[in-house]
C-alpha cells in the first residue's frame, strides 16, 4: 500500500508547497509513490488519515502549537519543509522585539481590542522552528525548498535511506558550477557557513547567499564574521547577515 502523505502549513508564504506543485512531470511519479491526502495548495480533499506529515511554516501561537502536536501524534514520520519550519523563517526576526512592539508596527491600523491577547489568533506570536515544539524526523531546508531535493528526500524515505541533505558549505556547489566568487568581485556572501544542497542558486545568479538553508553542522562562524569585517561590513551589516534566516542560532531564548 502506498504511504499516505499530508501536507500542512503554519506561518509561511506557502512558497515551498508551491515548489512541490511545480514538480511538474515529476509530480506524477511522486503520485505513483505516495497518496497525497491533505494538500490545500494542490487539491481540495482533506483527510485525517496519514503516515507522513510534511509541515511548512513556523510555529507562532499556542493554537499552532496545539495543532502541530496533534499532527505529530498522528504522523509516523514528520518532515519539516522549508526555512520557516526548519529555522523559524525570516519572520523569526520579529522575536527580537516584544509582541506588543510587533503588533504596533504591523497592525497599527487595527483596533487594539481586535489584536489583544484575548484573540487567540494574535496571542504570543513568537516564531519557532518545528523541532523546538515537537520531534522532527527529517528536514528539507531552504527558502524556498529545492524541488529536486524534495524528490530525493522522498525517495530516501521510501527506501529507508538517510535523506541526502548535504553538510558542506554552499561554496562547494558554487565552485563545482564554476561561479565567480562574489568576494572576488566586490561582494560578500554567507556561502562559507551556509548548508549546501541548493546548487548555489543565489551566487549563480549573482546574488549573495543569505544562508536560507541554515548553517552547516560545524560552521566556522568566527572566521566568517572576520571575513565580513575584512570586506568592509559594519557591525550592523554583519549582524543582519547573521540573522536574516539564522537568528535561531543566536537568539537568547529557544534557540538551539
Amino acid at each position, binding site marked *: 500500500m502506498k504511504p499516505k502523505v499530508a501536507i500542512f502549513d503554519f506561518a509561511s508564504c506557502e512558497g515551498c508547497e508551491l515548489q512541490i506543485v511545480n514538480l511538474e512531470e515529476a509530480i506524477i511519479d511522486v503520485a505513483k509513490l505516495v497518496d497525497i491526502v491533505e494538500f490545500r495548495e494542490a487539491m481540495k480533499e482533506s483527510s485525517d488519515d496519514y503516515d507522513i506529515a510534511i509541515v511548512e511554516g513556523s510555529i507562532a501561537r499556542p493554537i499552532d502549537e496545539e495543532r502541530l502536536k496533534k499532527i505529530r501524534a498522528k504522523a509516523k514520520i514528520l518532515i519539516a519543509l522549508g526555512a520557516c519550519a526548519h529555522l523559524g523563517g525570516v519572520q523569526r526576526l520579529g522575536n527580537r522585539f516584544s509582541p506588543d512592539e510587533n503588533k504596533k508596527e504591523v497592525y497599527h491600523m487595527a483596533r487594539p481590542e481586535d489584536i489583544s491577547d484575548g484573540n487567540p489568533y494574535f496571542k504570543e506570536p513568537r516564531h519557532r522552528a518545528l523541532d523546538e515544539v515537537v520531534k522532527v524526523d527529517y528536514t528539507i531546508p531552504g527558502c524556498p525548498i529545492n524541488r529536486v531535493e524534495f524528490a530525493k528526500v522522498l525517495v530516501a524515505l521510501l527506501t529507508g535511506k538517510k535523506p541526502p541533505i548535504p553538510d*558542506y558549505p554552499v561554496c562547494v556547489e558554487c565552485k563545482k558550477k564554476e561561479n565567480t566568487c562574489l568576494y572576488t568581485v566586490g561582494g560578500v556572501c554567507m556561502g562559507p557557513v551556509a548548508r549546501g544542497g541548493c546548487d548555489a542558486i543565489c551566487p549563480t545568479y549573482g546574488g549573495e547567499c543569505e544562508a536560507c538553508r541554515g548553517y552547516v553542522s560545524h560552521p566556522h562562524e568566527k572566521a566568517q564574521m572576520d571575513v565580513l569585517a575584512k570586506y568592509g561590513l559594519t557591525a550592523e551589516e554583519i549582524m543582519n547577515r547573521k540573522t536574516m534566516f539564522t537568528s535561531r542560532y543566536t537568539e537568547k531564548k529557544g534557540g538551539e
Partner: protein
Amino acid sequence: MKIIKREDFKAFVNALIKDSGLDVEGVKAKGEKFAFGPLESADDLRLDYDVTLLPPKKYFLPQYEQLLKFDLSHPFSVDRPEYPRRKVVIGVHPYDIAAIRQMDSYFLDTDISANYLRRRKNTLIIGCDVMKVQEKAFFGSMGTGVMHSGYDLYLTDLGDRVAMEIGTEAGSDLLRYAKNIREASPVEVQKVKAMREAMAQKASRGLIVKPTGWHDLLEKNYESEVWKKQSDKCLGCGTCTLVCPTCFCYDIQDDLNLDLKTGERLRTWDGCLLRKFTEIGSGEVFRDDILDRYRHRFHRKGRYLPDRLGFVACVGCGRCASQCVPDIADPVNLINMLFEASPHLVQDSLSDPHTVRTDLQVIQTGDDAKMLHMPQAATIKRVEKLSAKETMFEITLDSGKTLGHTPGQFVEVSIMGMGEAPISVSSAPNGKSFEIVVRKVGDVTSKIHTMKAGDKVGIRGPFGRGFNVEGLKGRNILFIGGGIGIIPMRSFINYVLDHRKEYGEVTILYGCKEPCEMLFSKEVASWSKRDDIQHKRTVDKCPDGECWDGDLGVITTLIPKVKFDPKTTVAVVVGPPIMYKFVNRELLKLGVPEENIVVSLERRMKCGVGKCGHCQINGVYVCKEGPVFNYRDLKNLPEAFK
C-alpha cells in the same frame, strides 16, 4: 613548428567546431573571469586569458561523473557508463598541462582507472602560452611555465600569426582542418623560443624555499605555530581543494530515480578541508580540528604525494591563492611563513619536483583497464544473526571463483541505490564462499540486514594488506580482540587454528562491553575446550540478569593473566581506536618489541583502491598499505593513534 595567419587560425577553430565531429571546448570569458566551456565560434576563444576559474581537470575527472548505472528490477543489473564523447580542449596553459600529467601518474599508475583512461584517451589537448599572468600565479617558481610535452598541439600567439607546435600524431592530424599553414622561419622559431624563456622567468612571487625543499621544510615544521595561526582564519569551505588542478579526492554516492528502480552511482569532487571528509558511521571524525585539515592539504602536496609519486602536487597556477576568501591558501605565503618562523637549512630532498611517468603514453592505445568501481555480482547463501546489531552473511561470487583473500583483507559490499561499505572478510580462506559480519549503523549496513539467502549484493575486492599469515608461521601469537575488532581477526584466528601445527604458542584474548555483544559465541566456547591454545575472555560489565562465565574488566586486565614470552611473541591487536592506546602501552611495557605488534585500523573509505583520498593517515593509505599495519611503521605518524 608551423605558422598560420590569425584569420586562418580562426577558420581552423571554426572548422574544428563544424566539421571535426569532436566536442570543441576552449577558454571563454565568464563575467570578469575566464572558464573552459563549449565553443560555438572561434570568436569566443580567449587565448589572452590569465587563468580559468576551474582547471581543465573537469574534463578528465568531472565534477559529477557516472561510475555505473543500475536497475533494481533485475536481481543484479549493473552497467558501465556510456563511452565519453571525443573532445578537443583549446587553450590549456603549461602549468595545467603539468597538472594533467600529474593526474596521469595518479590515475594511470597502479590500479589504472578506466573511467579516467577513457576520458583521457578521448580528449585532445591544444596548449598555449601564457600571455597575461594572473597576480597570484607562481608557475615560474614551480618550473611549470614551459612544457615540452603533454599536449597534442601547442600555440603561441604572435599577434597577426599563431605559431603551432605539433606534439603528437593525433595533434598533427587535426591540422587537416587548417588551411594555409607553412613552416616557421628561423626568425620566428627564435622569437617563440625567446618568448618562452621570458615566460619561464615570469610569475615568480618570491618563494623562499624551492619546491625541491618543500618536503624537508614541511616535515620539520609539522608542529609549527603557523598552522594554528593560519587555520584559525579558515572557513573550511573546501575552495582551495576544489579549484586546484592537482587535487583529485572524490566522494561516491548512489542516486535512485523516482521510479525507485533505475539509478546511478556518481562520483563527485570532495576535499580534505571539508569536515565530513573523514567522518565514519560511528560519528568519529579523524581530522576534526580545522588545523589538521588545513595542514593535511599542504603536506599532501609537498610531502605525501612526492613520497609516493615523485612530484610536488602544486603547479603554481595561483587558483587557490586568488579564490580563498580569508587569503590563507596561497602556497607561496605558507611556505615563506613556515620558513620565516624557523629559518634553518632546508634540504633539497627531492631531486626534481615534477617527476612524472612518461611511459604512461600507453594511454593512446587499448582499453584494458578495469572499471575500478564496478562490483561483481554475488549471492548471499546463508544469514545468521550473531547479536542484536551484528549479522553474519555467507556469500559466493556468481562468477564461481573464490574470493582469494588473505585474512585481514576487506571487500567493498555494494547495495545498489544505497551505496558501498568496506567490510572485513571474517572467514579464513577455505572453500568457495566467504563470510562477512555486518554491524547495523547506516544506510548500507541497515539494508543488508533486511536481506536473506538468495539475495544479490555487489562485491569489489579483496582489498588492502592483510595479516602476514605465511611470515608468521612458526611464531608465537597473542591475539587481542576488542568489540567488533574480533570480526577481521577471526579470519586469522581460524586460519591459525586450521593450520595449528604450523604456528607456535597461540593465545586468544577477547573483550566486549557486555555479554550480549559477544560474537561467535559457539566458536569462542570451543576455544576454551582446546588444550593447544590459551584463551581468556572478559566483559567490561555484566548487567543484572545476564550470565557470564568469563572475567570482568577491560581487556588490558587479561594481559597479565596469560603466560607468553614478550620477546618472541607477536601480538595481533584489533579493536576500537581507544583500545590501541592502552593495549599497545601495556605490551610495550612488558617488553614486546614494536615490530612484533600488529594492528588493523579503521578509517573512512570510499574507493578501496588508493584514489579517493579519504582513508589517509598522514601519507599512508589505509585501504592499500593497511588496514593491517606493523606498529613500528605507524608510531611516527601523528595521525595514527590520535
